């Protein structure tokens, strides 16, 4: 594995940090676009929050569900 790919590399850390911010910006922009629609209703926030969560970089650290169950990862079918 080349040097830049090593997770402890400080440059890679900075790159990951940058991309992390870009991901949040992309997600927020998509959410905002939906929330600004004329047919938006706050009921949709629950679903939008779910869509924001799994794509967030810390998603895989939050695998324990609301009632204490473990979430098991499935590929898309």
């Amino acid at each position, binding site marked *: 594995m080349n040097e830049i790919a090593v997770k402890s590399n400080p440059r890679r850390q900075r790159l990951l940090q940058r991309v992390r911010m*870009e*991901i949040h910006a992309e997600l927020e922009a998509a959410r905002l*676009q939906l929330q600004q*629609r004329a047919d938006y209703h706050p009921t949709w926030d629950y679903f939008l929050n779910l869509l924001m969560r799994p794509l967030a970089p810390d998603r895989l650290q939050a695998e324990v*569900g609301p009632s204490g169950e*473990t979430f098991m*990862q*499935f590929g*898309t*079918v």
Partner: protein
Amino acid sequence: MGLHPLRLGSGCFCVGRLSASHSPVLMCPLLKATMGLLQFQAPTQNDTMPWVVPTTCDWVVKFQELANTQPEAYFLELPHLHRGEKGQQRWLEEIYGLVRLLENQTGRKLNRKTLLSSVQIFMHAWKVFGRLIELRRKRVLAGVWFMVAANSFLLDSIEIWTERVHQMLETVATHPPAPEGNGVFLAGSPIIFPNFKLLHLIETAGMDVYGDDLCTSERIWPGAVCYEEPSYRGIMRALAERYHKACICPTFADNERRINSILNTLQQHHIRGVVYHVLKGCHPFDIESFNLEPRLKSRGYHFLKIETDYVQEDSQNILTRLEAFGRI
């Protein structure tokens, strides 16, 4: 068994660059984005839990090899012929294999009672989801909101998700339907938040999606699980059959049912055209489009194929085509 499935997959464009250097250029953008997100994965207690990967398309099959991350994948080998008894028997064996894996991981046994209860929970969710489909067909629910609800399936406990969909239905059902307009059927590669580009463009072009066959949307359920006898084996057989035989993913070789299913929806709901979405690199959907197009056109339906990925720069080009399509 105290486990919940969590769907992997991402529609995030910017994260793709993290996987660009160690993946093929024309790789499916959905998996490229998912691979990029895994770069952020920190070691967690869940590392011992494998990913369950149904071997659908080539990209999915080679995903673990490309991603090179922990935990290891557990492959559910999907027989690519699903109409005959042989394929179904092999799939049933795979499901039993998965049960053994889950039992080993959790130290708990799957029994008839918990299996039945789980099937019922899913079937309740399926019924609620069916009402959602109905509202979209009646133009009460915009296609883009339908996709929001469907996309969030398997991202929370199924009971909580179902309850929230139910609450949302109560709110939306009181809304008046949108004026009758240009309804289209959206077929093809999956669309995942935040990449709703095509849905927004369809709306901008004065149309809306009244139905679809996307595996991240209307096709998250193949239908009701019907068992002849409520024994453990009887339910397992019914589950295997429903999720294999009834699935219309284009990775199956004998997939005539998909075309019939699309034709039925078009006919029943007076939808006159199909927008066919192909993610660049998504070969199974691309291949099926060549069979589907003449079949639909010969029955008088319009067909527009849009091949794209997660970039925004082709939006104007796509919009031009959609606008013209809406006027045909």
